[in-house]
């Protein structure tokens, strides 16, 4: 927080002349370079970890019978490069990763990249849907709680958010599934589409978007309908979390001089809140939203299982129990990349919201 004081008082002496766009680009380039390094580091960690895991992938994949056959084991090891020294295995792997080649899954016998292209968008679609709902609902309720501080709406919402953050996701998922899908049949409960429909042509991997692009409206509605239940279950926790945080952050901003100044201008309360309070509050809220998105991804493993959602969580689970090393490493890289991307996005949003960041 530098409060720049150009001596003359002329605006932006020098600073603004440095083209804010250029500054932002340079800032982003730095962040990208750091992110790339981070990615390499993560592959290394993932690779090392898989080496430390007790258990023989050949044993896990070939089954009891073939284990007794040394030729089969050797062939398996040669096929997946497991007979090479570790550093060579790693370097080969990295080289391949940068060519988009994540190896063959020992479990699906397909390229890991192909598997991921199918499973990752399913999870991202779910998590995006959930985070958008969480942000809209959580921030709105947080603002309502803050402006009604200590009055009944605040008290009620406090209980709601406490419930949201303290109910275990698996329990919410089971109850929601049982009531809304099984018992009252209000929402589709499992999978990404009605079984009678076939997936839309692949463009983004998001069924709802791909269907809309292809003009298959029935498919799009079915895809959206299937998103509702699992994403709402995922959102229960993040709504609670974002509500609490938005309330605190709005309350903090409400105490500022510039809010009193905005009120002294006779602006309607709605304008004061949206323009003068929410904007600075969003800086903090976005940070938490980034963290919330991360927690959504980890919550997804469970929710995907319960709602038979063919996402990366299910894929990771299957890879792990089968000790499918290429699969595990592929998932690690994608998850790391997603986290890094989120952080990048959060940084970018800071710059959009707060001009002081753009200028320094």
């Amino acid at each position, binding site marked *: 927080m*530098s*409060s*720049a*004081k*150009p*001596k*003359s*008082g*002329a*605006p*932006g002496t020098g*600073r*603004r002349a440095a083209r804010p766009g250029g500054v932002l680009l340079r800032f982003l380039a730095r962040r990208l370079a750091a992110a790339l390094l981070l990615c390499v580091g993560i592959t290394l960690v993932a690779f090392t970890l898989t080496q430390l895991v007790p258990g023989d992938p050949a044993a896990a994949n070939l089954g009891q019978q073939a284990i007794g056959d040394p030729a089969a084991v050797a062939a398996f090891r040669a096929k997946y490069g497991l007979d090479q020294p570790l550093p060579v295995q790693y370097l080969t792997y990295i080289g391949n990763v940068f060519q988009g080649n994540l190896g063959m899954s020992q479990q699906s016998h397909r390229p890991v990249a192909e598997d991921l292209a199918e499973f990752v968008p399913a999870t991202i679609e779910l998590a995006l849907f959930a985070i958008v709902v969480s942000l809209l609902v959580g921030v709105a309720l947080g603002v309502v709680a803050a402006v009604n*501080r200590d009055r009944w709406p605040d008290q009620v919402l406090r209980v709601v958010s406490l419930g949201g953050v303290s109910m275990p996701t698996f329990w919410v998922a089971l109850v929601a599934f049982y009531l809304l899908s099984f018992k009252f049949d209000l929402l589709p409960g499992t999978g990404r589409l009605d079984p009678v429909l076939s997936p839309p042509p692949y463009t983004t991997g998001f069924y709802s978007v791909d269907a809309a692009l292809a003009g298959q409206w029935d498919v799009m509605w079915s895809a959206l309908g299937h998103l509702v239940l699992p994403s709402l279950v995922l959102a229960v926790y993040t709504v609670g979390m974002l509500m609490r945080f938005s309330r605190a952050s709005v309350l903090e901003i409400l105490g*500022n*001089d*510039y809010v*009193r*100044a*905005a*009120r*002294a*201008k*006779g*602006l*309607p309360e709605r*304008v004061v809140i949206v*323009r*003068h309070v929410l*904007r*600075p509050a969003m800086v903090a809220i976005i940070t938490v939203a980034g963290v919330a998105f991360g927690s959504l991804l980890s919550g997804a493993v469970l929710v995907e299982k319960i709602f038979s959602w063919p996402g990366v969580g299910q894929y990771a689970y299957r890879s792990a129990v089968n000790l499918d090393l290429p699969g595990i490493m592929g998932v690690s890289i994608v998850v790391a990349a997603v986290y890094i991307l989120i952080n990048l996005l959060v940084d970018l949003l800071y710059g959009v*919201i*707060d*001009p*002081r960041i753009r*200028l320094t």
Partner: protein
Amino acid sequence: MGTLLEVEDLTVWLATRNGPRKAVDGLTFRVDSGEVFGIAGESGSGKTMTAMALLGLLPHAARTSGRAVFEGRDLLAMKPRELRDVRGRSIAMVSQDPSTSLHPMLSIETQVTEHMRHHLGVGKSEARGRAVELLSTVRIPDPERALRAHPAQFSGGMRQRIAIAVALACEPRLLLADEPTTALDVTVQAGILRLLNRLRQERDLAVVVITHDLGVMSAVADRICVMYGGRTAEIGPRETVLTHPRHPYTRGLLDALPHPEGGAATLRPIPGSPPSLGAVPEGCPFHPRCAFAVASCREERPEPVPVGSDHRVACPPDPLGGEA
């Protein structure tokens, strides 16, 4: 000159842990159109709460009584909606620290024009044109460019000039300036005061200047109200109050001012400190610190009574009466 604002028996209760406490207690004063009216007193004497009461911006759960008639209507009796139409349009505020009172994330253009557009219904480009004029009125160099900038790109003095431009945007009749120079470097204080003085002459604008610094008062105020413990100690024309003070507290404040020729040696601060909220003593609130206190000062609450033309003092023993 007509009366613009007539405040009568204004009392403000603030919510505290121990229940409501008086931050302002029975304040009566008037502000004429086009004049600079000063409210002085040490920190905690209730100056800011007086201004906030007029704007309807008191802290949560505060209450008021009395009247504050502005252009024929009682501000204290207005509905929130009506008061919002007065705020920013007929009565504007400039507060102490422009680095916190200007919004750090909104452009100067937004901050100067948003209430103009809301209250006066002017379009974007017209509001912009007016904003350029306003910024040149308060002497901001290169106003066109300043509109695109953000507060962090200006010095403290420039920010306060911008805050004043914001306050003037809807051509208010009354400006409440709460410690407008306190947060600024000494070198730029005089410039801001000159600006306020020029504006009230050019624009038929009445200004209430709130300050703990009687030096500031002597530079701008036409009439002065000296407050202590939420009450009026002395009120009257600047000349009278500053050169022939009749209240021991006013006298004490003046003695505490550094003299231009005397240096630190002549600086005599008032012993003790002002009462905190809810702890204002019985009788004359100033008696524990007053060198002239007599027995009756501990019991009777003195009301300000006229002692000369337009001059009222709340000190029945009147120990300084003979000096004039």
